[in-house]
């Protein structure tokens, strides 16, 4: 495997101090990784050996947990995150078309980020706002009963 690329923009000291708080606590792996992601927007691969050492785990165990859970990302994401809900109610009320519309509008596929790093387009299993289906989440804000026009407005607002 390639060595993790060293990105100088990443504040390794900050990562070390996050790990330090939970030193030696194996159970803390998920909260530690969550905290790193909250601060950096993703989990820089260079953080993995640091986390492993601090919590006395193998790097493979850390990597294994990161790759297992859908919420963890190892690549930088866009400034704005759009997540289209794919729950049953949303599916029945046109989530698929909503996703297609966004893919077309942003010229990216699900899971990708626009080249200018503005938007990342993702799907989420269910956000539990089924009564307002179809839903999307823009930067943790739920927008319900979406249609083509509302999508247009949302994206416009984001550009302004």
């Amino acid at each position, binding site marked *: 495997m390639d060595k993790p690329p060293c990105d100088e923009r990443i504040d390794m000291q900050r990562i070390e101090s996050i790990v330090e708080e939970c030193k030696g606590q194996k159970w803390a792996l998920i*909260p530690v990784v969550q905290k790193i992601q909250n601060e950096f927007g993703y989990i820089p691969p260079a953080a993995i050996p640091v986390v492993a050492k601090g919590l006395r785990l193998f790097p493979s165990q850390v990597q294994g947990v990161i790759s297992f859970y859908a919420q963890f990302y190892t690549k930088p994401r866009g400034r704005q995150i759009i997540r289209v809900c794919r729950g049953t*109610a949303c599916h029945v009320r046109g989530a698929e078309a909503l996703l297609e519309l966004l893919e077309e509008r942003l010229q990216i596929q699900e899971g990708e980020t626009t080249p200018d790093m503005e938007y990342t387009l993702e799907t989420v299993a269910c956000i539990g706002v089924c009564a307002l289906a179809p839903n999307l989440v823009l930067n943790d804000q739920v927008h319900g009963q979406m249609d083509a026009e509302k999508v247009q407005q949302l994206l416009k607002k984001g550009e302004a």
Partner: protein
Amino acid sequence: MQNKRTVFVCQGTGCLSTGSGAVYEALKAEVAKLGLTDVEVDFTGCHGFCEQGGIVAVEPEGIFYTHVTIDDVPEIVGSHLKGGNPVERLFYRDPATGRAVPRYHEINFYKKQQRVILRNCGRINPEKIDQYISKGGYRALKKALLEMTPEQVIEEVKRSGLRGRGGAGFPTGRKWEFSRNAQADRKYVICNADEGDPGAFMDRSVLEADPHAVIEGLITAGYATGANAGYIYVRAEYPLAVKRIRIALEHARERGFLGRDILGSGFDFEVYIKEGAGAFVCGEETALIASIEGRRGMPRPRPPYPAQSGLQGKPTTINNVKTLASVPPIIEQGADWFSTIGTPKSKGTTVLALSGKILNSGLVEVPMGTPLSTIIFDIGGGIPGGKRLKAVQTGGPSGGCIPAKIPDTPVDYETLTMVGSIMGSGGMVVMDEDTCMVEVARYFLSFTQAESCGKCAPCRLGTRQMLEILARITQGKAQESDLDTLFTIAKTVKECSLCGLGQTCPNPVLSTLRYFKSEYEAHINKKRCPANQCRFLRRKTGKKT
């Protein structure tokens, strides 16, 4: 002078998405501006009627406003709160008659429900412990800790007939007893709030609207089983629920309901929150335990059951949010009261998340055994657009589709299993004639296939194979023999998988094959989708989608 009135603005996730946060602020400002000293503006959690959001209720009159936006605020304050004339145009309109219904209790959606688990949802401010206490909160805990032995608590819950509301329906009292009888230096209780089923949102609503009810149930479970630590494992997709639990825990601690020597009983108990990280399978109890311990959330074979060896290898009791929220009323009002609700084998009420092609989407709590048709037509208001009911999907990706031809099916654990579905978490998605049943099965399989943890072969390989066949069918590329293969794989996965995810994921396939085989055959033989939904088989009608 009029009595003091309170304006409750719903601040659940659903209503917040319609801008109810701004409505709340604007109401406060407007009331202050007009100097209305007899009006208090407060907020509640989810009313369970999110489709009508933003919801504003004025108590004690019981006036119920729907679809309130910030522009309506001056009129509500000026005309109603100051002038005494409620704003009729914001009343709920009965979809069947078109008539305006001013009061909460007169709306069919609420009138026909019996709310036990959702008793406080939309009625109290979830961030104020005093409001929970004023509704009788923590009385049950006092009774349990000060007047009852742990064995008596277990006996009461056993007698009530309460069964796990997470889906499997295991008797709660017996679960507690296993853990009570296990010998260990430490024990744990866990509240499973990893509500992953797409189409289910009751746990979110309860946690957002009435977190103390769950905490009170969890402390009681700890006392009964002999545990001194509890965890609430909640989905990361529910940030507001996490925030409200955190506040509630702090308040409970301040009042001495948590911590050392609770209420002078000598019982110590502490609760910790664990946020999930986006894995459906973590709703399975052994996977959930692995996730709390910081490992990949993969299930392991049982036995040993968590009641013998769970968290850290110690006896652990895992209960669903709704199960725990049912405990305080049982302790307070007694098992005899609780067991009068429901059917002989399924006691109490069930909370269903009604959504899909239905007029009144929302949370519905009814006694177990209520016929499906009552839920869909009387409470749910029927199908929009004059369309016909085709099927009802219950239990999420682990459940099945119940056809419209058996609308009187009573909703309880046994009957739903008999007709090929399950109670599951209580998701209930209504489908009309425009919904393709093959596509529904494909949709659920695409979900379970992606969420399969990959540990056991039947689930890992079987979900993939089933999904491929279903995709072929919806694309019109399948042969008749594919149906037999699909059925065989589905049976194998159901029988041989390690955990609940694998054992139940073929249900959507098996139940649609059982009731809607003709739709499968139309896709295969006539290359036609009867509901005209499948993209590759769509008839050209000139209709733009």
